Protein backbone atom coordinates (compact mmCIF):
# COMPACT_ATOMS: atom_id res chain seq x y z
CA UNK A 1 0.00 0.00 0.00
CA UNK A 2 1.52 3.36 -0.97
CA UNK A 3 1.98 6.23 1.42
CA UNK A 4 -0.77 8.38 -0.08
CA UNK A 5 -3.33 5.59 0.28
CA UNK A 6 -2.33 5.08 3.92
CA UNK A 7 -2.58 8.85 4.48
CA UNK A 8 -6.06 8.99 2.92
CA UNK A 9 -7.24 6.08 5.08
CA UNK A 10 -5.81 7.82 8.15
CA UNK A 11 -7.83 10.93 7.31
CA UNK A 12 -10.97 8.77 7.14
CA UNK A 13 -10.16 7.26 10.53
CA UNK A 14 -9.45 10.65 12.13
CA UNK A 15 -12.72 12.00 10.79
CA UNK A 16 -14.46 9.77 13.35
CA UNK A 17 -12.64 11.38 16.28
CA UNK A 18 -12.03 14.99 15.25
CA UNK A 19 -14.40 17.50 16.80
CA UNK A 20 -14.13 19.71 13.69
CA UNK A 21 -13.82 17.52 10.57
CA UNK A 22 -13.17 20.63 8.42
CA UNK A 23 -9.69 20.74 10.01
CA UNK A 24 -8.92 17.62 7.98
CA UNK A 25 -9.39 19.46 4.68
CA UNK A 26 -5.98 21.10 5.01
CA UNK A 27 -4.28 18.28 6.92
CA UNK A 28 -0.79 17.24 5.92
CA UNK A 29 1.69 14.69 7.24
CA UNK A 30 2.90 17.38 9.66
CA UNK A 31 -0.54 17.92 11.17
CA UNK A 32 -0.45 17.04 14.88
CA UNK A 33 -3.31 14.75 15.84
CA UNK A 34 -3.90 16.16 19.31
CA UNK A 35 -2.74 19.77 18.96
CA UNK A 36 -3.95 20.63 15.45
CA UNK A 37 -6.95 18.34 15.03
CA UNK A 38 -8.07 18.74 18.67
CA UNK A 39 -8.60 15.01 19.08
CA UNK A 40 -9.16 14.17 22.76
CA UNK A 41 -6.01 12.42 23.99
CA UNK A 42 -8.22 9.71 25.47
CA UNK A 43 -9.38 8.97 21.90
CA UNK A 44 -5.86 8.29 20.67
CA UNK A 45 -6.18 4.65 21.73
CA UNK A 46 -9.40 4.39 19.72
CA UNK A 47 -7.55 5.83 16.72
CA UNK A 48 -4.73 3.28 17.14
CA UNK A 49 -7.17 0.37 17.44
CA UNK A 50 -9.06 1.58 14.35
CA UNK A 51 -5.74 1.70 12.48
CA UNK A 52 -4.95 -1.86 13.56
CA UNK A 53 -8.33 -3.04 12.28
CA UNK A 54 -8.13 -1.06 9.04
CA UNK A 55 -4.58 -1.98 8.09
CA UNK A 56 -4.37 -5.41 9.71
CA UNK A 57 -1.31 -4.52 11.78
CA UNK A 58 -0.45 -4.50 15.49
CA UNK A 59 0.89 -1.29 16.99
CA UNK A 60 2.62 -1.78 20.33
CA UNK A 61 1.91 0.73 23.07
CA UNK A 62 5.48 2.08 23.07
CA UNK A 63 5.22 2.65 19.31
CA UNK A 64 1.86 4.35 19.75
CA UNK A 65 3.38 6.66 22.37
CA UNK A 66 5.65 8.06 19.64
CA UNK A 67 2.80 9.04 17.32
CA UNK A 68 2.31 12.79 17.29
CA UNK A 69 1.55 13.72 13.70
CA UNK A 70 -0.41 12.01 10.94
CA UNK A 71 2.95 11.40 9.25
CA UNK A 72 4.22 9.54 12.31
CA UNK A 73 1.26 7.17 12.09
CA UNK A 74 1.61 6.75 8.33
CA UNK A 75 5.32 5.96 8.72
CA UNK A 76 4.74 3.27 11.39
CA UNK A 77 1.95 1.66 9.39
CA UNK A 78 3.94 1.73 6.13
CA UNK A 79 6.89 0.05 7.88
CA UNK A 80 4.64 -2.64 9.29
CA UNK A 81 2.95 -3.29 5.95
CA UNK A 82 6.38 -3.69 4.37
Amino acid sequence: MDEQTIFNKMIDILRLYTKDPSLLDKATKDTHILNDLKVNSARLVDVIIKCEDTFGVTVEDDEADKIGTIGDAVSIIKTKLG
Partner: protein
Amino acid sequence: MGASQETILQILHSVPQQYPFRFIDEILELDEEHIVGAYRFRVDEYFYQGHFPGQPITPGVILIETMAQTGVVAFGLYLHMKRMTPPLEKANGLTTLFTVAEGVEFTGIVHPGERVIIRGEKIYFRMGNLKSKVSMERENGETVSFGILSGRGVPAGKL
Protein backbone atom coordinates in the same frame (compact mmCIF):
# COMPACT_ATOMS: atom_id res chain seq x y z
CA MET B 1 -7.67 -16.39 38.10
CA GLY B 2 -9.54 -13.80 40.13
CA ALA B 3 -8.00 -11.34 42.54
CA SER B 4 -7.41 -12.46 46.11
CA GLN B 5 -9.35 -10.92 48.98
CA GLU B 6 -6.15 -9.19 50.06
CA THR B 7 -5.74 -7.61 46.62
CA ILE B 8 -9.37 -6.53 46.59
CA LEU B 9 -8.89 -4.78 49.92
CA GLN B 10 -5.76 -3.08 48.58
CA ILE B 11 -7.66 -1.84 45.54
CA LEU B 12 -10.54 -0.54 47.68
CA HIS B 13 -8.00 1.23 49.87
CA SER B 14 -6.35 2.75 46.80
CA VAL B 15 -9.51 4.23 45.25
CA PRO B 16 -8.77 7.93 45.77
CA GLN B 17 -12.35 9.18 46.01
CA GLN B 18 -13.44 9.71 49.61
CA TYR B 19 -16.52 10.83 51.53
CA PRO B 20 -18.70 12.62 50.56
CA PHE B 21 -17.82 11.63 47.00
CA ARG B 22 -17.11 7.96 47.44
CA PHE B 23 -19.58 5.57 45.85
CA ILE B 24 -18.00 2.14 46.21
CA ASP B 25 -18.45 -0.11 49.26
CA GLU B 26 -17.40 -3.53 48.02
CA ILE B 27 -15.72 -5.38 45.19
CA LEU B 28 -17.49 -8.70 44.74
CA GLU B 29 -15.60 -10.05 41.72
CA LEU B 30 -12.38 -8.93 40.06
CA ASP B 31 -10.13 -10.33 37.38
CA GLU B 32 -8.37 -8.95 34.30
CA GLU B 33 -11.55 -9.00 32.21
CA HIS B 34 -14.25 -7.82 34.57
CA ILE B 35 -15.22 -6.32 37.90
CA VAL B 36 -18.38 -6.41 39.99
CA GLY B 37 -18.82 -3.87 42.78
CA ALA B 38 -21.59 -2.64 45.05
CA TYR B 39 -22.67 0.55 46.74
CA ARG B 40 -25.57 1.43 49.00
CA PHE B 41 -26.77 5.02 48.71
CA ARG B 42 -27.07 6.39 52.22
CA VAL B 43 -30.33 8.10 53.03
CA ASP B 44 -28.39 11.16 54.17
CA GLU B 45 -26.24 11.64 51.03
CA TYR B 46 -25.67 15.40 50.63
CA PHE B 47 -27.33 15.71 47.23
CA TYR B 48 -30.74 14.39 48.25
CA GLN B 49 -31.50 17.64 50.04
CA GLY B 50 -31.70 19.46 46.72
CA HIS B 51 -32.45 16.63 44.30
CA PHE B 52 -35.31 17.00 44.89
CA PRO B 53 -36.68 18.74 48.00
CA GLY B 54 -39.22 16.39 49.56
CA GLN B 55 -38.75 13.84 46.75
CA PRO B 56 -35.16 12.57 46.93
CA ILE B 57 -33.81 10.53 44.02
CA THR B 58 -30.20 9.87 43.04
CA PRO B 59 -28.98 12.27 40.31
CA GLY B 60 -28.02 10.66 37.01
CA VAL B 61 -24.60 12.27 37.19
CA ILE B 62 -24.01 10.50 40.51
CA LEU B 63 -25.07 7.20 38.94
CA ILE B 64 -22.44 7.75 36.22
CA GLU B 65 -19.83 8.57 38.87
CA THR B 66 -20.82 5.45 40.81
CA MET B 67 -20.43 3.30 37.70
CA ALA B 68 -17.06 4.95 37.01
CA GLN B 69 -15.67 4.41 40.52
CA THR B 70 -16.09 0.64 40.15
CA GLY B 71 -15.91 0.11 36.38
CA VAL B 72 -13.06 2.50 35.61
CA VAL B 73 -11.27 3.60 38.80
CA ALA B 74 -11.10 0.40 40.87
CA PHE B 75 -10.83 -1.77 37.75
CA GLY B 76 -8.16 0.48 36.25
CA LEU B 77 -6.09 0.49 39.45
CA TYR B 78 -6.16 -3.30 39.44
CA LEU B 79 -5.11 -3.50 35.78
CA HIS B 80 -2.32 -0.97 36.39
CA MET B 81 -1.17 -3.05 39.33
CA LYS B 82 -1.16 -6.26 37.26
CA ARG B 83 0.90 -4.60 34.52
CA MET B 84 3.63 -3.44 36.88
CA THR B 85 6.75 -5.60 36.83
CA PRO B 86 7.11 -6.73 39.53
CA PRO B 87 3.50 -6.04 40.54
CA LEU B 88 3.18 -3.16 42.92
CA GLU B 89 2.11 -4.21 46.36
CA LYS B 90 -0.21 -1.28 46.37
CA ALA B 91 -1.84 0.73 43.63
CA ASN B 92 -1.50 3.81 45.80
CA GLY B 93 0.03 6.84 44.21
CA LEU B 94 -2.29 6.93 41.22
CA THR B 95 -5.24 9.16 40.91
CA THR B 96 -7.74 8.78 38.11
CA LEU B 97 -9.23 11.05 35.51
CA PHE B 98 -12.57 10.38 33.89
CA THR B 99 -12.07 10.98 30.15
CA VAL B 100 -15.05 9.78 28.11
CA ALA B 101 -18.67 8.76 28.72
CA GLU B 102 -20.47 7.33 25.71
CA GLY B 103 -24.00 6.10 25.16
CA VAL B 104 -25.04 6.43 28.79
CA GLU B 105 -28.71 5.69 29.37
CA PHE B 106 -30.84 5.62 32.49
CA THR B 107 -33.68 3.13 32.66
CA GLY B 108 -34.71 3.43 36.30
CA ILE B 109 -34.72 5.65 39.38
CA VAL B 110 -32.47 4.92 42.36
CA HIS B 111 -33.93 5.92 45.71
CA PRO B 112 -32.14 6.73 48.98
CA GLY B 113 -31.11 3.55 50.81
CA GLU B 114 -30.97 1.38 47.68
CA ARG B 115 -28.01 -0.93 47.08
CA VAL B 116 -26.79 -1.12 43.51
CA ILE B 117 -24.51 -3.60 41.77
CA ILE B 118 -22.04 -2.27 39.20
CA ARG B 119 -20.58 -4.48 36.50
CA GLY B 120 -17.65 -3.50 34.30
CA GLU B 121 -16.25 -5.42 31.34
CA LYS B 122 -12.91 -4.41 29.84
CA ILE B 123 -13.05 -3.23 26.25
CA TYR B 124 -9.40 -2.28 26.29
CA PHE B 125 -6.63 -1.26 28.65
CA ARG B 126 -3.88 0.36 26.62
CA MET B 127 -1.41 3.19 27.11
CA GLY B 128 -2.77 3.66 30.61
CA ASN B 129 -6.31 4.13 29.34
CA LEU B 130 -9.17 1.87 30.38
CA LYS B 131 -12.34 1.70 28.32
CA SER B 132 -15.05 -0.27 30.02
CA LYS B 133 -18.60 -1.37 29.26
CA VAL B 134 -20.39 -0.60 32.51
CA SER B 135 -23.86 -1.23 33.88
CA MET B 136 -25.69 -0.69 37.14
CA GLU B 137 -28.49 -2.85 38.44
CA ARG B 138 -30.64 -3.14 41.54
CA GLU B 139 -30.29 -6.10 43.87
CA ASN B 140 -33.20 -7.74 42.03
CA GLY B 141 -31.20 -7.61 38.78
CA GLU B 142 -33.13 -4.78 37.12
CA THR B 143 -30.79 -2.59 35.09
CA VAL B 144 -30.99 1.12 35.93
CA SER B 145 -28.14 2.52 33.83
CA PHE B 146 -25.46 1.49 31.36
CA GLY B 147 -22.85 3.00 29.10
CA ILE B 148 -19.24 2.97 28.00
CA LEU B 149 -16.84 4.85 30.27
CA SER B 150 -13.14 5.60 29.92
CA GLY B 151 -10.48 6.95 32.20
CA ARG B 152 -6.78 7.03 32.82
CA GLY B 153 -4.51 6.87 35.82
CA VAL B 154 -2.06 9.68 36.49
CA PRO B 155 0.52 9.96 39.26
CA ALA B 156 -0.92 11.77 42.26
CA GLY B 157 0.24 15.37 42.39
CA LYS B 158 0.40 15.73 38.59
CA LEU B 159 -3.06 17.25 38.23
